[in-house]
C-alpha cells in the first residue's frame, strides 16, 4: 500500500465523525492539529539545529557534535533540556508583561503561518484562497514580537537590535513579496493548493523561464534577510550588539526565540519550495513515462520535505560562507539592487504571462 498522509487524516476524520458529535469531532481535530503543530516545531527545532551544527562543522573542516549519544545525535536534546531547567531571568527595569509576552507572539506568528502550507497531497491545515497573501500578512506579526522584546528588555543593545531587525524585515519584505507576485501572475491564483496544482506538468523554476529564476534568487536572498540569518544577522551581531533583541532573555524564553528562528527558516523554505519547486509535486520529465511513474511512487510528503530541506541547506550554506554585511551595505542591497531588479522582473513576468510564453 502506498504511504499517504491524507489517507490517514481522512481515516481519523471519518472515525471521529462516526463516533462523536460533529462539534466534538471538530474540537478534537483542532486539538490534534495544534498538538501536531507543536510536535512538528519541537522536532524541527531538534533536527534543524543539529543539521546547522553539522553543516557548519563540515564546511569549516571540523567534525561537529559527535560525543553526546550516537554520532552526537542527542546534542540538541541536551541543549533543550538544559534550557528548560535553566533559570529564566526577567530584568528589574524591564516591562515585565511585554517582556514575557514577546517570545510567545513570535512563536504564535510562526505557528499561524503554518496553516496554508501543503505538507503532502491533500494534506493541509487550511487551504485558504489567499494563501500567499495570508503568509506575508501573518509573518509581519513576528516583527512586532521582536520589537516588543527589544523595547521591553530595557537594554540599549536590545532596542538597537530590535530596530535594526524591524527595519530589515520590513524592507526585505518588499522584494520577497514582489518575487512571490511573479508566481501569482503565472498561476493567476493566490491559494497555495492551486499554485501546487499548477505545477503538475513542471515546476515553475523549469517552465517559468528567466523571470522565475531571477525571482527565485531574489526570494532566497530576501527570506535569508527576513529570518535575520547571516550574512544579514546585523540584528544580533555579537561584536556590536551582544545578541540583539534577545540579549536579556535566558532559559526557556530564549529557547522560544531560538526555536522561532529555525521554525521561520523552515516556513520560508516551505513557501519557497511550494512556489518555485512544486511543493509536494514529484519531479516529472516530459515524456519519460517510466521515470515519471517511479517518481510518483515516492510519497508526496517526502518530496515536500526533501525540497524544503534542500532550500534550508542552501540557506545554511549562505550562512557559513559569507561574512556579515554592514548596515549600509544591507540597505544598498535592498533598495539599490533587489527592489529595482524585482520590479523590472515583475514587468517582464507580466509581459511573458500576457504573451502566454510559458508551458
Amino acid at each position, binding site marked *: 500500500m502506498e504511504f499517504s498522509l491524507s489517507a490517514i487524516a481522512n481515516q481519523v476524520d471519518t472515525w471521529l465523525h462516526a463516533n462523536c458529535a460533529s462539534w466534538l469531532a471538530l474540537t478534537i481535530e483542532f486539538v490534534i492539529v495544534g498538538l501536531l503543530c507543536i510536535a512538528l516545531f519541537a522536532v524541527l527545532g531538534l533536527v534543524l539545529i543539529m543539521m546547522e551544527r553539522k553543516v557548519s562543522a563540515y564546511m569549516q573542516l571540523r567534525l561537529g557534535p559527535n560525543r553526546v549519544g550516537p554520532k*552526537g545525535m542527542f546534542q540538541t536534546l*541536551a541543549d533543550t533540556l538544559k534550557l528548560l531547567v535553566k533559570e529564566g531571568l526577567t530584568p528589574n527595569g524591564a516591562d515585565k508583561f511585554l517582556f514575557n509576552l514577546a517570545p510567545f507572539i513570535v512563536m504564535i506568528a510562526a505557528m499561524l503561518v503554518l496553516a496554508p502550507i501543503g505538507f503532502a497531497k491533500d494534506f493541509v491545515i487550511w487551504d485558504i484562497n489567499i494563501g500567499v497573501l495570508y503568509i506575508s500578512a501573518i509573518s509581519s506579526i513576528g516583527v512586532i514580537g521582536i520589537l516588543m522584546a527589544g523595547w521591553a528588555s530595557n537594554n540599549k543593545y536590545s532596542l538597537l537590535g530590535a530596530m535594526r531587525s524591524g527595519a530589515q524585515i520590513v524592507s526585505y519584505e518588499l522584494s520577497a513579496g514582489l518575487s512571490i507576485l511573479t508566481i501569482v501572475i503565472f498561476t493567476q491564483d493566490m491559494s497555495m493548493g492551486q499554485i501546487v496544482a499548477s505545477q503538475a506538468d513542471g515546476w515553475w523554476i523549469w517552465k517559468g523561464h528567466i523571470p522565475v529564476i531571477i525571482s527565485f534568487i531574489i526570494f532566497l536572498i530576501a527570506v535569508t534577510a527576513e529570518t535575520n540569518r547571516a550574512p544579514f544577522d546585523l540584528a544580533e551581531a555579537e561584536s556590536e550588539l551582544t545578541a540583539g533583541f534577545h540579549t536579556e532573555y*535566558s532559559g526557556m524564553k530564549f529557547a522560544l526565540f531560538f526555536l522561532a528562528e529555525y521554525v521561520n527558516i523552515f516556513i520560508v523554505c516551505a513557501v519557497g519550495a511550494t512556489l518555485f519547486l512544486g511543493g509536494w509535486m514529484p519531479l516529472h520529465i516530459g515524456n519519460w513515462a517510466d521515470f515519471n511513474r517511479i517518481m510518483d511512487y515516492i510519497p508526496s510528503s517526502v518530496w515536500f520535505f526533501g525540497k524544503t530541506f534542500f532550500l534550508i541547506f542552501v540557506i545554511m550554506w549562505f550562512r557559513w560562507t559569507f561574512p556579515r554585511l554592514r548596515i549600509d551595505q544591507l540597505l544598498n542591497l535592498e533598495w539599490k539592487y533587489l527592489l529595482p531588479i524585482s520590479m523590472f522582473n515583475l514587468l517582464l513576468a507580466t509581459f511573458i504571462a500576457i504573451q502566454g510564453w510559458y508551458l
Partner: protein
Amino acid sequence: MDVKDNQQHAFPGDVHPTASGGILVSKLDDVINWARSNSLWPLVFGTSCCAIEMMSTASAKYDWSRFGFEVARATPRQADVIIIAGTIVNKMAPVLKRLYDQMADPKYVIAMGACATSGGPFFYNTYSVVKGADHVIPVDVYVAGCPPRPEALLHALITLQAKIKAGDKREKIVIEKFVDSN
C-alpha cells in the same frame, strides 16, 4: 565550628535522598545533570593571551563543538560557563563580577591560565592585578599553564563535565580536600 562537624551538616542547596520516593528524584537529577554537562555554552570573554588559545580551541583542529561547547554566547544571560581567559586586573574585576551576576543559574566558571588562577607572573610586585579570579567570583575548574594548550582547555571542560555529572557542589569539593589534607 569544626570542619568535620561542618561536613555532617547539609549545605544550602544540597538535596539529601529521602527514605521514600528518592529514586525518581535522583534519576531526574541524573538526566538534568547529563543535559547540563553536555550543553555548556561558554560566554565570549577573553581579556588577554589565553583568549587566543580559547579561540583556537574553537578552531577546526581542536574543535570544541564535538562536545557541544561551540555555542559561544555573547550575552551572559544565555551562557552557562564563563571561561576567564586572561589577566583580571583591578579595573576588570567589577566587570567580571557583574557578568557573573548576570548569568542565569546554573553557572560555572573556569579559570584558564596562570593569571586567572593565581595572578601568575603578576603575583608579586604588581599593584594592578587580582591575584586569582577566585578572589572575585567562585571558580569551578582551574587550568594551569601560561597559556594552557587548547587541549588543556578541553581537558578542563571535560573535568567540569565530570563534576557536573557527579552532581558535586563547589563547597563539598573544597571541604573534602581540606579534610583529606589534614
